[in-house]
């Protein structure tokens, strides 16, 4: 089964779970006076779950023929691309998300930019370090001072 039909299967499952919540479990907690309303919080989701299920079934059963176009990247040969780099960068983003608050903006951003270009194969430290550090500082200055959105600059234990 091709990837698009697997995805349709997953989405059909999501629609089923969503529809189950909308049709059977949601209305239980509705206040009695709201039940007189012609529209309930579950009305619109009910409609959506039915249409979504129909659309995913059309894809799953292959009812609609579509001419296969040449994709940018063939997922069947994913191993031949720079998959490792992509996964490393994704892991780096997760680490950034987790570290932004405790480690402070300046440190985590500089580390993110340096490690990001390092993972991509950059080894010219003389260029990489100043670019990353200056960019970090400029963005921090713009966001914090010009736009006035607070970003904790330094790690918590230094008192940032």
């Amino acid at each position, binding site marked *: 089964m091709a*990837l*698009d039909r*697997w*995805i349709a299967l997953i*989405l059909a499952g*999501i*629609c089923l779970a*969503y529809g189950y919540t909308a049709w059977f479990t949601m209305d239980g907690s509705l206040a009695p006076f*709201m039940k007189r309303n*012609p*529209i309930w*919080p579950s*009305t*619109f*989701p009910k409609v*959506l*779950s039915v*249409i*979504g299920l129909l*659309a*995913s079934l*059309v*894809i799953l059963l292959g*009812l*609609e*023929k*579509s*001419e296969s*176009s040449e*994709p*940018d*990247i063939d*997922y069947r040969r*994913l191993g031949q691309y*720079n*998959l490792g*780099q*992509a996964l490393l*960068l*994704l892991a780096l*983003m*997760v680490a*950034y*998300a*987790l570290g*932004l*608050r405790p480690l402070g903006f300046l440190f985590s*951003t500089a580390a*993110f*930019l340096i490690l*990001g*270009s390092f993972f*991509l*194969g950059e080894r010219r430290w003389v260029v990489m370090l100043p*670019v990353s550090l200056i960019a970090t500082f400029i*963005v921090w200055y713009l*966001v914090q001072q010009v*736009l*006035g*959105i607070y970003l904790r600059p330094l790690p918590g234990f230094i008192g940032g």
Partner: protein
Amino acid sequence: MLEGLLIGLQTALSFQNILMVIGGCLIGTFIGMLPGLGPMSIIAIMIPVAISMGDPSAALILLAGVYYGAIFGGSTSSILLNAPGVAGTVASSFDGYPMAKQGKAGKALTIAAIASFAGGSIGAILLMVFAPALSSVALLFHSAEYFALMVVGLSAIAAFAGTGQVAKALLMTIVGLIMATVGEGALFNLPRFTMGIMDLQSGFGFITLAMAMFALPEALFLVLKPRTTRDDESGKITDLRITRQEARAIAPVIGRQSLQGFFIGVLPGAGATIASFLGYAVERNIATKEEQEEFGKGSIKGLAAPETANNAACTGSFVPLLTLGIPGSGTTAILLGALIALNVTPGPRLMLDEPQIFWAVIMSMFIGNLVLLVLNLPLIPYIAKVLSIPRNYLIPFILFFTLMGAYIGQNNATELLLLVAFGICATALRFADYPLAPLLIGFILGGMLEDNFARSMQLYDGIGFIWERPMTLGLLVIAGLLVVLPSYRARRARLRAQGVADGD
């Protein structure tokens, strides 16, 4: 009207207000270029500045300038990086980005600038002429019609998004609508589908989703499959000029889309986003067979259409704001808030009570468009320099800006994890050739769609509004046809290809 024009000119041409227009356009362009910071967030950020000036005309002029600049900057990043920070410029990347990939980035930016200028200026003329008349037409629309109109918009997007894959586009739209129902709706004050997670209480962030759907997969694709051709072509954005032939090709597109975009922009709920997608779809459908092949691969018509339409629609969205006091889009809703803070109540009386505000805004639209054209066209080679940044630096910076955009909007680190998770899902969807734009549009319109649906259900005490209001019924029938027709036509084409050729 002539008197009003003169009052407007007098106000708009004061030294302070000209500075406001230029400053607003520049700020808007630069921030709007960063993927993820759309006009809504920029205007929200600029509101304290505008309010502290104390002069309503100057404030509105500044904010309108920022709005235009942000839309223009957004199309620049759509074309160069395929990272639209604004939903309204998503359609510009369909053809703008392929053009940039072919080394025609300079030409694409010129076309975008000219189309934006024409769309905005023609829109401003229309606003001047039609504002009073259109407000009375828009008054006839009830929530039932708004609901039906949004359904038409969504099904048009689904129907035109992909070639022969209407079901995929439809499914993506539904997924977007489903995601919009997560969190607390304005109508019910009940959290829905949050699975008990506090961070989902307010729903998914629009910016997060936009980043995850467009910028992140694009960056990942760049990592997975480095473009070797990029290095030789970048840096020489020489071909800024468009030929006479190309100008002739896009002129009718600009004319049609200025009108269509403007009128779509006037309708609340159907703003720049719908206008640009619909404009793209319409131009694609009425183009000749050979030109249709070009669409999606770097067609100049396919770029000019959404660019014209979204700027015209931005202008059009001022009509309900200035004449009825009803914001037609998220951006004009923020503008409405700013005006009320400045002690101005937009509405039918605005034109009578404070004509200088109304006309100054219109005049500043002309000036703003001129500033964008005059300032940005010469700056295009420098703006396009973004392309010549080495990949090793560009990718971490794109990733960083997607993270920042999501973080600034919500100030919440959980949003960043959501961003990564959605980004991975979106990449998988792109592998499987699912169109992602319908998902985002469904998500944006989901809330308004449900609100209007709920309101008409309440007014008519049930589903009766569909057949009791002929206009609603008609619009819904059109929506149904839009979804069914493409597959019907594809089936007929297939049958024809199998058997003997038909007469036509």
